[in-house]
């Protein structure tokens, strides 16, 4: 199968993720969308590694997985703390800081 199809798929996933960050209101869903964007980049890296005929892209994908896992830990800690103090995980509700 032509690996460039995977690049197109990764662009679609990245677009869906970016759209999700912009339109969704629940912090957890926004966060999932960010993860989708990172995984779209992973897919692009792996597909390009196949097209370029070297392993660099695959190695990057491993590092990105580790970074994404670390990001989950930090992100969920922040979101859970926000939820506990406000009883809501909406990303619109914390609005004390403005202008």
């Amino acid at each position, binding site marked *: 199968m032509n690996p460039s199809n995977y690049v197109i798929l990764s662009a679609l996933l990245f677009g869906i993720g970016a759209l999700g960050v912009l339109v969704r209101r629940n912090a957890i869903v926004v966060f999932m969308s960010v993860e989708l*964007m990172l995984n779209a980049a992973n897919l692009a890296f792996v597909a390009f590694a196949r097209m370029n005929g070297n392993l660099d892209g695959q190695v990057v994908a491993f590092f990105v997985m580790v970074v994404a896992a670390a990001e989950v830990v930090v992100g969920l800690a922040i979101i859970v703390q926000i939820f506990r103090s406000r009883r809501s995980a909406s990303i619109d509700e914390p609005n004390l*800081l403005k202008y």
Partner: protein
Amino acid sequence: MNAVASVIHAVDATPWVMPTLDYRLLAPVLIVLGAGVVSVLFEAFLPRGARRPAQLSLVFVSLIAALIAVINLNGVRETAGQGALAIDGPGLILQGTVVVIAILGALLMAERGLDPNGDAFAARASSLPGSEDERQFTARGYFQTEIWTFFLFAVGGMMLFPIANDLLMMFVALEVMSLPLYLLAGMARRRRLLSQEAALKYFVLGAFASAFFLYGAALLYGFSGSISFAGIASSLGSKTGETALILIAIGLVVAGLLFKIGAAPFHQWAPDVYQGAPTPLTGFMAAAVKIAAFGALLRLLYVALGGMRWDWAPMLWVISILTMFIGAILALTQSDMKRMIAYSSIAQAGFILLGVVAASAAGLAGSIFYLIAYAFTTIGVFAVISMVRDENGEATHLSKWAGLGRKSPFIATLFTIFMLALTGIPLTSGFIGKFYVFTAAYASGDKWLVIAAVLASLIAAFFYMRVVVLMFFTEPTQETATVAIPSVFTTVALAASATVTVLLGIFPQPLLDLINNAGVFIR
């Protein structure tokens, strides 16, 4: 990653080759990250009473050791870690500056004499704001020492960021720098709802921006077949066509870095995070993240994308002008000191971008000088902000600064020096920085950009001077805050930043010589 590539070739030609690591070249970063690991062990195994002295000694000893290791590398111009890191003149200067700023930032964070309840960080970040738990923890004088672990890892990431020489190392350094800062931003002792909100906004927008960086990196890799900056540069030189793909890739990668710098239109997080985060952390972050991220942006644009200058320069012209004017104009309308300084830092980022757009050795040297001058001044500004207090903690509303010059002339004078430096008045470091950056941009033919920058500086001068007028030419009121007497930590940080701000304005030549002798980035 060359190691991996060489392994593939090794299968059919030569046996496995061990990757070589020159530990002398990696020493500064390894010392700080190693200290971060030791700091985790301290948290796990030391009794509560011993943690603060142990962590503080660890932080200062490791930072000073790292600074010595950086100075020890003076004159080195080579790549390390199989080409993943570039130890060169500009990289070492930026790395050394990050370490010095980290020492000053650590001094601010260690301060316990200003707030009657302890340092600037929450007694227990896990307790709910306003809850009985929180009250109890505060009453018992609890404090958290985990902040030092986060701090050391963030400093390690910042030291890696300007010397990262491939896309993977740059992404990892970006995240190692950012993740601890997201958490630290949410740990203020007072106004905790604001602080947590700042952490949420910083995290969500930061993760969004790093996803853009990563996807851009994937496209660059797909185009050039290499993640190393040298490989990208050589394949950009040889391949033609497919410019749409490469422009999208450059746009995405640069957007990710511009976010960290706080350039418009990626600046929205900065005012909220600067205002919500604990003040000592804001000072450290405002100074050190800017140095690290500008270092990374300069290396990426000059080394990997140097051949594409005529494609990325117009984009950065627009961003530079937008950043200067949005920062300067919105700062005029602010009534909160920390928020105003946040917009001021956005405007300053726009001025430094002039040196980046110049794409010359003079532009590089000017940007580095400006970054160093800006960083020391910013640390000083936030040191003063953390000292101006009333019964509710820091008095950041501008109205509470009215007449401060009558009540505390010395501190108000120091703050005036910082404001003059940020404005760019002669005999302060800010003037020399602006002069070199503007000259470099002019020499590269960006005449209109320089004119726009001078106009933006004029607008910016208005709000900096407004603070000076407010402090010295207004009568103190009932509302006027008082200046708390700090312990030796903040005093040292404030004295150091004020000294550097004035010295660099009067005797800039030694630092200019150092920067000019450092040369340019290596491939």
